[in-house]
């Protein structure tokens, strides 16, 4: 399964400070660590960055790709910053991934055309101005709307990664199954099946620290069983990565060898 490494996020103090000071080292350190542990993409979340979004994004993309040969997942709602990131992105190891469009009209209209213009792949959240739909089928309706916009913008179906959105089990236990079901229904929306992604750590938000690990990686197993294509997660979490690799082996997506966990 594809892993998008989530550690470079403006929410983390270390990252926020490094960005403000334009200090590349902490970002590069985090990028390298995640890449070595098997991240296929490095997520770069700069937040709203209202003041200097484009310059920040341009700088951050370049310093990260200086040290890892991987494509980036560009995480911002700021359109100008997104454009700057797409322009600065080095495509030789893969195309950039826009994080994200959604079923909200403005966000969809801002982000989807960029995927077409810059030949990028794009994550699309199946929520609308009304929030996250309760049922998996309702998320499919939002997805269908997103897919129609994609066709208008010349974005192929294979370039869209649908995200059903994960609600935390301590508060919304009754909604967790719907996200799992949504993955299966999303795949059926097209042939070949639509790609999917989730921000996995959301499932354990609000749970005590000692429970986060077991909740997250068990939820991962259920999602992967329904065919989850990728996850935004922390590849430094060894138990999480071991679980992911083991599911891949059990579902015949990865060839078994006695040392499979070391790969």
């Amino acid at each position, binding site marked *: 399964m594809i892993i998008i490494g989530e550690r470079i996020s403006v929410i983390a103090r270390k990252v926020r400070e490094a960005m403000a000071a334009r200090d590349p080292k902490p970002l590069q350190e985090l990028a390298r660590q995640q890449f070595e542990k098997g991240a296929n993409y490095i997520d770069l979340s700069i937040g709203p960055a209202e003041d200097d979004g484009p310059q920040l994004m341009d700088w951050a993309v370049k310093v990260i790709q200086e040290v890892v040969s991987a494509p980036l997942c560009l995480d911002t709602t700021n359109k100008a910053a997104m454009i700057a990131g797409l322009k600065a992105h080095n495509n030789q190891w893969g195309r950039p991934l826009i994080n994200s469009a959604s079923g909200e009209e403005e966000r969809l209209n801002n982000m989807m055309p960029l995927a077409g213009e810059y030949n990028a792949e794009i994550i699309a959240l199946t929520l609308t101005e009304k929030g996250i739909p309760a049922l998996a089928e309702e998320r499919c309706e939002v997805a269908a709307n997103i897919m129609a916009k994609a066709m208008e913008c010349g974005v192929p179906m294979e370039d869209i990664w649908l995200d059903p959105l994960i609600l935390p089990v301590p508060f919304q236990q009754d909604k967790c199954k719907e996200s799992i079901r949504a993955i299966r229904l999303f795949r059926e929306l097209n042939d070949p099946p639509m790609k999917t992604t989730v921000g996995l750590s959301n499932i354990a938000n609000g749970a005590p620290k000692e429970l986060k690990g077991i909740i997250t990686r068990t939820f991962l197993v259920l999602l992967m069983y329904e065919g989850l294509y990728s996850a935004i997660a922390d590849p430094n979490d060894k138990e999480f990565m071991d679980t992911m690799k083991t599911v891949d082996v059990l579902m015949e997506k990865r*060839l*078994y*060898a006695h*040392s*499979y966990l070391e*790969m």
Partner: protein
Amino acid sequence: MPFVIPKDSYAGKINSLTFGSGDKAVTIGGENGLPFLSFESSIPNRPVVALEIQDVAPSDWPDTVRKVYDGVSSSPAQWAKFCQDSLGAKIVALRLVGTHPDRDDRSADDAVKTVTEVLSAVDVPVMILGSGHIEKDAQVLKAAADAAKGKECILGKAQEENYRTIVTAAIANNHKLIAMSQLDVNLAKQLNILITQMGFNRENIIMDPMSSALGYGIEYTYSVMERIRQAALVQNDPMMQTPLLCDIGPNVWKTKESAAPESELPEWGSLEERGIVWESVTAATMIMAGCNLLVMRHPKAVETVNRLIGELV
């Protein structure tokens, strides 16, 4: 209902591997799809055939193939030159079968002499193969690797029981390495992992899934190879993306079909053509499963196979 070409897309690609130098260099691999589907993938390099020679005269080879080399096969250097100059071999594969304890039990030093002679005799790349005896090969291949330093040969074969010594020698002397496992896709992956963990560059590994002759288990090799390519190209498993080698001479030419005279089995037809077609069809099967490098014996079979390759790419 209009027809739309059902194209598959592949996440992975086979490593490209070059050995030899100058205009004699040979490159294999590099394809990014299942064999010969150029409508959905690119095939930068065609499969290549290496001609086999041995360090001792092939008295155990059936007549059909032995007699081709009568006159040169008592001298490995002459034999190598004959393959390069008269038969147009792109690669010469020297099998040190004489070092096997059940054969002449030649020493590592004997092997070194032969290797040195052969390397001086030809300009084309040379493959150095042990006799297949686990313990002896470790000694022999280490010595051979040292003797061939600077020549960037293909050294083989490293197996689960003896890979450590051979890998170390390959690293020290900058050779490419053949890793062989016994018809098992998972063991093949594991061996590549172990070799890579020793510090050997995985892009210099060639996988030998263990060949079988037509009628003697060929379908096992065929399916193991198809599964290896699925892992490499569809699952993008970096441990399975090595080029594939099929060493078919020994298995083909010890079959009854390659040696029994027509008088003994009239329903099997003429012996001469039979041996050649047995090697040719075995090779064709391996090529269809993704083989990048073949080691063969009979020049007519090689010629036939090269014609086939020309029609496939």
